[in-house]
């Protein structure tokens, strides 16, 4: 596979796309971890939802 004289433009395009997608995936995963940690902390301190279920409960 030869990328020709404009290889740097092609590689930069794919690298930028990979970096942005990686940032999006990282943001979603870190945010999920942060929110579940905060919910568990609240749960441990006795703050529960009106339904009485734990905030991290699923049906």
């Amino acid at each position: 596979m030869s990328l020709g004289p404009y290889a740097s433009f092609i590689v930069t395009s794919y690298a930028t796309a990979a970096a942005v997608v990686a940032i999006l995936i990282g943001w979603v995963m870190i945010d999920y971890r942060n929110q579940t940690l905060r919910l568990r902390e609240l749960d441990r301190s006795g703050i529960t939802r009106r339904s009485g279920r734990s905030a991290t409960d699923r049906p």
Partner: protein
Amino acid sequence: MTLIDLANPTRFLALTARVLPWLAAATIILLTIGLYQSAFAPDDYQQGATVKIMFIHVPNAWLSMFVWGVMSVASLGTLVWRHPLADVAAKSAAPIGAAFTFLALVTGSLWGRPMWGTYWEWDARLTSVLILFLMYLGLMALWRAVEDPSRAARAAAVLTLVGAINLPIIKFSVDWWNTLHQPASVMRMGGSTLDKSFLIPLLVMAIAFTLLFVTLHLAAMRNEILRRRVRSLQMMQASRVAFSSEVGTGSREESASKEAGAA
């Protein structure tokens, strides 16, 4: 499971827990196939190997508009039907849409430099997509600026629907004005002008990026629901603390007045 069932955030969380692993796997498989096909697609007789940039530029350009379309439908859900998840859907789609629009602009510039001789030209297509990117940033700023989520949701929904006017302008800008950007070559009357050797990898990449959006959007919606639960629980915690301190102050004042009376 109907759409009404999904209005319940707890049921929605259960659904995302089941669906997300499958969506992520399908995205990875399709992206791998698409990247393989893109890598081994033949060079274009005019563009040479730079045609490979199209396989990521075009899906991102499509998604930049598609995500705003999703947000517009969600905004209708917020304003008309007051669907509990509509605002969550719109808010969590905005950063993803902004990222796709950013990628469309950057990869377009990187293709433009060798092909047009310039990174940027203030033509109708490029300018209208830049405006779309700025609107995404504006919406994200609005959601951050207003503390009450329901008030922010209504303002953001109105802004999103007004901003949807930009979508047909982007789509038809290449027909309405004389632009440096070429006219549509895939979605056009009379069918695609692309050869199969380019069209197939492009469509595979487009489906892969769309699946990536759906996966990230569901995950971001799940996070937003959890964030709102954290917020409501923290408010509950704060009100309990305030109530107990009020009760404490009240009983101290009561005992102080009794002591004064006794004296």
